[in-house]
């Protein structure tokens, strides 16, 4: 099932909205691959692309939030770190065990995006609404 990505996920800062959408589109592609039992190398390439997109986006977002004196920065960074750790763990496991594209992984990622962007990022929206 594809994650619905509507206006409720907008955070009030266009560059971040674009980056979120790019990550979501990658997760869609991974989902499609998992649904049709796609090829393992293509899957790993998408996973790697997601990791680098996430790294890039998180550091940009954290820098901007720090600049604006965001009071929940530390906790926000924690959520980013936790996902990156999980992603790296998934990556390591997939490579080692040679596992196939997995819907459990894409469902986890889609849910993470929905909660993190929809709820956690939503808390900094007021910084950009001035």
């Amino acid at each position, binding site marked *: 099932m594809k994650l619905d990505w509507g206006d409720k996920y907008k955070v009030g800062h266009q560059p971040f909205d674009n980056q979120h959408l790019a990550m979501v589109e990658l997760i869609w592609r991974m989902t499609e691959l998992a649904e049709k039992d796609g090829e393992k190398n293509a899957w790993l390439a998408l996973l790697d692309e997601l990791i680098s997109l996430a790294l890039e986006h998180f550091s940009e977002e954290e820098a901007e939030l720090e600049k604006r004196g965001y009071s929940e920065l530390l906790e*926000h*960074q924690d959520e980013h770190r*936790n996902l990156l750790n999980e992603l790296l763990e998934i990556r390591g496991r997939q490579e080692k065990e040679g596992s196939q594209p997995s819907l*459990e992984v894409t469902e*986890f990622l889609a849910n*993470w995006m929905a*909660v993190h962007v929809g709820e*956690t990022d939503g808390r900094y929206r007021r910084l950009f609404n001035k």
Partner: protein
Amino acid sequence: MDDKYFGIVISDREFETFRELIYQESGIRLRDNKKDLLRQRLNKRIRALGLKTFSEYYKLVDEDRSRKELTELIDAVSTNVTSFFREIKHFEFLTGKAIPETLKRKKEGPFELRVWSAACSTGEEPYSMLFTLLEHEEINSKWKIKLLATDISTKVLQRAMRGGYPATKMDSLPGDLLKRYFDLKDDEYILKPKFREMVNFRWFNLITARFPFKHKFDIIFCRNVMIYFDKHTREELVRKFTGAMAPGSYLCIGHSESLANTSHELKYVQPTIYQKP
């Protein structure tokens, strides 16, 4: 060392000793990026005690047989953002699936819903669970709600038990719920006493404690806890939860957490939701 700008400074070696102590006592594995947090949070405490270095403070914590100071220390590092109905999908799942199933499973009695918020923080999570249960149309007066809420931090427990929240932090709560469950007093929403009394708050260390429960739970929330733990600690904790769950009951974990790399006997339902077979 006391620096003008940073206050009392913590060395890498001192951070290591604290990290080890905190891990032994709580299972919380502090990452390197928590060094600054530890320094900031403990500076005031160290000064208040009339001490000059982190090493002196460590000695005091280590030698305090009442373990009071240790609790202060764990309080200082176990922080989390929380809000009412955080991870809304879990509450939708309770309403649409977990609660109706539990009622059906227990239709011959006992007419009790046993629910546990295992890392309840300042109370937003257990109270959101309580509202979800009370608002459920299938739960009538014949059912008793047994809601346990525990945390390792005494400080957050005190705040949870008081049930007061700044008006600015209530965005995630629908207006009608706000009216029904809270009194507004000087920019603060305070949970009405009769609802506050429905939640049983207890201090509880998930890692070191043996689970003492006589009756099995129908629903357990343990969110944003396992991210602190290594694989072994996580597996041990899930094993203990599984032992405390009724067949058909559910465990909800946080959105950054997954049991995919953890060996367990639960059934995967959807992301972050697991069921005991």
